């Protein structure tokens, strides 16, 4: 489990608890639309940036691990390591 796994949990949780939030599950409108509808739509939209951010973090981690592996290989070869 990495911290970036938790990023999409935020919109998922906001969507799941939607009917239990008293300021969302009530009559009255936001921007001329039912509050539940606005809340649901807004957090659906947020799913995409959350996943894009997660993907970026995952790519960065992969790049870092590749870089470390490359550095280790170079050091080993330079020191006349196991290849010989």
């Amino acid at each position, binding site marked *: 489990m990495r911290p970036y796994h938790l990023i999409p949990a935020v919109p998922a949780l906001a*969507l799941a608890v939607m009917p239990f939030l008293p300021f969302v599950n009530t009559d009255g409108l936001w921007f001329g639309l039912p509050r539940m509808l606005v809340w649901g739509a807004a*957090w659906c939209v947020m799913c995409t940036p959350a996943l894009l951010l997660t993907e970026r973090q995952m790519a960065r981690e992969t790049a870092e691990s590749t870089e470390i592996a490359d550095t280790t290989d170079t050091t080993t070869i330079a020191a006349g390591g196991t290849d010989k």
Partner: protein
Amino acid sequence: MTTILIMTFTGIVLIGVLGFAGRRKPAADLSEWAVGGRNFGAVSMWFLQAGEVFTTFTFLGMAGLAFSGGVAALYALPYVPIGYMVLFFLAKRLWSLGKERGYLTQGDYLEDRYDSKLLGTVAAVLGVVFVLPYLQLQITGLGLIVQLVTGNSSSGTLSMIIGSVLVAAFVLWAGLHGVAMTSYFKDVVMLLVLGVLLVAIPSHFAGGVSAMFHRIDELHPEMLTIHAGPADQVWFTTSMLVSAIGVGLMCLPHAWPAVMSARDPKVLRRNYTWMPLYELCLLMPIIVGFAAILVLKPGSSANGILLTLSKQVLPAWATGLVVIAAIATAMVPAAGILIGISSLVARNIARVQGERTQFWINHGTVVAACGLSLLLAIFRPDLLANLLLLTYSGTVQLAPAVALGFLARRPVGKVPVLAGLFVGELAVIWLTFWNKDLAGNVNVGLIGLAANLIVLTLAAPAERLLARRTTPAPDKQVAVTA
């Protein structure tokens, strides 16, 4: 009326022709037919996956649900994005396993991961039993659409026959390529029609979307909240959760061919990232359904309200377009379901030797499943209605097996998984048909899943203990090997 009727049958034939255009010559083997040679790019994948989400239920059912239950209809909005967020993380593993091990179906995956033909067959049988009513629903929906706009039941029956024959024919010819080709058309025409309806219907009856909701807020404020009753908070949350698990863990068997057809896992991840935005289109029929609260009497037939309002607002040719879009939302998912069912039968149930025989069994199943669904839709439309209640709650019982199968080192064997599956299904069937009040508003699929997990958790250590007792000691093993 004649204009609508002509457009209706032209639409059915057009979808059939587009399906045939998906391939120039028929596929040579089952892999090419069912998963398109695993070579589908981002655009095809997008429409294939959207094709599974936007069905007759979405197009007509969501408007009906908003009309009868108000914002309770919004339970259908979050489950696909939540499910896709789970699939975003699983996509690479799922695709890699599928490619390396040659999976075409859910049964293939379970059979291989648990090294159990029995589990593969059981999963396939459950998949066919629970999804066949869903196929029939699409065909019945097609007939209902035509009957509603023409007011003529024989037109409805004729449309079911022509639609089913064309779907079976283009699926046999083009396989998943045919489904992809018709999906492009379906989504374009559906979005166009929903966009027009979103503007036209609230404007006509209430002076716009905002004005419409202000009137509902004054006259029917209860429609803007989830409140006590059959569609309360418990129903909303548990139904959403079961559906999200079903989507996120690929419990519906017809979801597998589309995912297995992707060119690479990046395509899948990209689609799972952007698909939640597309899911917002679901709000369009829901908003149209709200308009019906102000216009139609309570208790009016909920499934037909989108078409009823369209007829009142739009000219005949435009209503014809709405009907074509509605027909597409029935025929295209039906084609995808047929591929899911037939490949399960050919790969995991029939178990014949030889690729050619398997291919012909697959094609025979397409004809048989489509024919059976058509006959039931015409003569006994209610026969499978009860089974339809089990489509999601029944298939979601495969979630533990699918989820644990992703792990590199499987923590349980086939016996605990099968035992959990058996108890979960039993609980769901019992609560759905015999003791309906016991679950209250909790989705029975979730109760079944709890029973399933308890049995699995208890059976897993028992299985390990038994295996340890029956396995000979290492020195004896060496002796035996030697």
